[in-house]
């Protein structure tokens, strides 16, 4: 393989350096830059809007792409005159707890479906995935009935218990793929050496499946952080809202959009998830490689 790779590179190095560099720029950097520009433009828009004063926001003649006198007024308003911090806490708690619950359940079910042989394992696997595809717009009515029965409206547990309905199927399905990609022999030799199933799973399989587990966890965290519909329906009190709902409901009053505050909240609310991804994005891609693609 090394010789092949060398042979492949050989003709290139004979070309003049500038031509190579230009080709590289054209093939790699230009498309990437274009992509990033388009992707990030709305974020630039949010940032620029969040630091504009209200006068500038309402000025028709000014170029809306730039700001003349930046101000942190909207951020101040957000922190001290809305329940933004409370929403942030709610969202964090709900996202972390429901991710933990879903990850635990799907580790067990994913392992069972990937490794243990029992009747109907395949159809259960399919069933789990199909439940992920049932849209929440269809499920929220019956779920609301359930929540009412348990008297959980305006309680964070309403969300903590309903989010796993779409997190577990997805994580399980991702993890089945990942567990299947780990050679069975590793575990079998552990079993022969006297470990029981649980030990084999925890000591041998889990460390190997770490990228998969991480990416499932990140995915679950993102989905529950951004979830809108259930949070909108189950959380009526201003105090108990999550960021995606609270921001949109409290900062848009009728026809009146509080653009500055809205955009400030949008940026602040997505920082945790953005940080998470910037640290673990390589794991995420690696986890997807085995889990989603081969599953």
């Amino acid at each position, binding site marked *: 393989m090394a010789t092949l790779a060398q042979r492949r590179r050989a003709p290139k190095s004979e070309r003049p350096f500038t031509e190579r560099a230009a080709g590289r720029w054209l093939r790699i950097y230009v*498309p990437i830059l274009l992509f990033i520009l388009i992707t990030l433009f709305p974020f630039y828009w949010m940032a620029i809007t969040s630091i504009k004063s209200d006068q500038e926001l309402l000025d028709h003649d000014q170029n809306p792409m730039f700001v003349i006198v930046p101000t942190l007024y909207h951020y101040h308003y957000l922190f001290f005159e809305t329940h933004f911090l409370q929403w942030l806490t709610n969202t964090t708690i709900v996202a972390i707890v429901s991710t933990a619950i879903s990850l635990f359940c799907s580790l067990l079910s994913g392992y069972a479906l990937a490794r243990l042989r029992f009747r109907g394992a395949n159809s259960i696997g399919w069933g789990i995935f199909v439940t992920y595809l049932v849209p929440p717009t269809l499920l929220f009515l019956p779920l609301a009935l*359930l929540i009412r029965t348990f008297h959980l409206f305006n309680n964070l547990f309403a969300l903590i218990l309903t989010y796993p309905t779409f997190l577990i199927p997805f994580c399980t399905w991702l993890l089945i793929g990942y567990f299947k990609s780990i050679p069975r022999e590793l575990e079998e030799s552990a079993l022969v050496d006297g470990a029981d199933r649980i030990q084999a799973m925890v000591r041998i399989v889990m460390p190997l499946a770490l990228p998969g587990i991480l990416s499932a966890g990140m995915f679950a965290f993102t989905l529950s952080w951004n979830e809108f519909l259930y949070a909108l329906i189950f959380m009526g009190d201003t105090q108990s809202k999550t960021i995606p709902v609270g*921001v*949109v409901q409290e900062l848009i009053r009728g026809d009146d959009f509080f653009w500055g505050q809205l955009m400030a909240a949008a940026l602040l609310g997505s920082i945790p998830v953005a940080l998470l*991804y910037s640290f673990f994005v390589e794991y995420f*891609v690696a986890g997807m*490689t085995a889990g989603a*693609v081969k599953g």
Partner: protein
Amino acid sequence: MGVVAYPLGLEIWLSLSNAAPGVDGDYVGLANYRYVLGQAVYLHTLENSFIYIFSSTILKAILGVAMALALGAAFRGRRLVYALCFLPFVFPGSVGTTAWYYLFSNVHGAFNYALQSVHLVQQPIAFLGSGPLPMASVVTVNVWHGTALFGVLCLAALRSIPGDLLDAAASDGASCASSCRSCGRHWCWPPSSRWSGTSATSRSSTC
């Protein structure tokens, strides 16, 4: 599964009965379905959903593959670029959509300002008014939101192509494009097509 199966069952039952708030209904067969399918508005929304799902999924697939191919090569600062490209996907759909709403706005929106300042249009365009433009706008937002996931999955698929396969293709004189084509067909198509189904049915309906 029970968590999902019970509400789903309840829903099927409700759709077959004439229950109203506070009243336990009786079984009425498919009457509700007949009623709904007789409504012109419903059929129209159905048509809109199909246009929305298909156009945004196709666009996401094309752009996602392009993104994966661009990001597949090794270059400096790759991790940062990955994270940046992934931002729209991890961004809360509700607030992201609000930002776009502002961009599209015909009063203070950036797009209208840009179009007017280069004198392409005289009057502000109602991107979210009536006609085909609103659909295009909504599809744009959805594509912006979902392309990253497609890209990462395609990237994952690309990475799972064994390197020696590409080396062999290159030493046999295959161009970059043709090796993309043949490897892509065998390695990337099955997962990405499966994913496009997933994306179309589930994610489009939520954001």
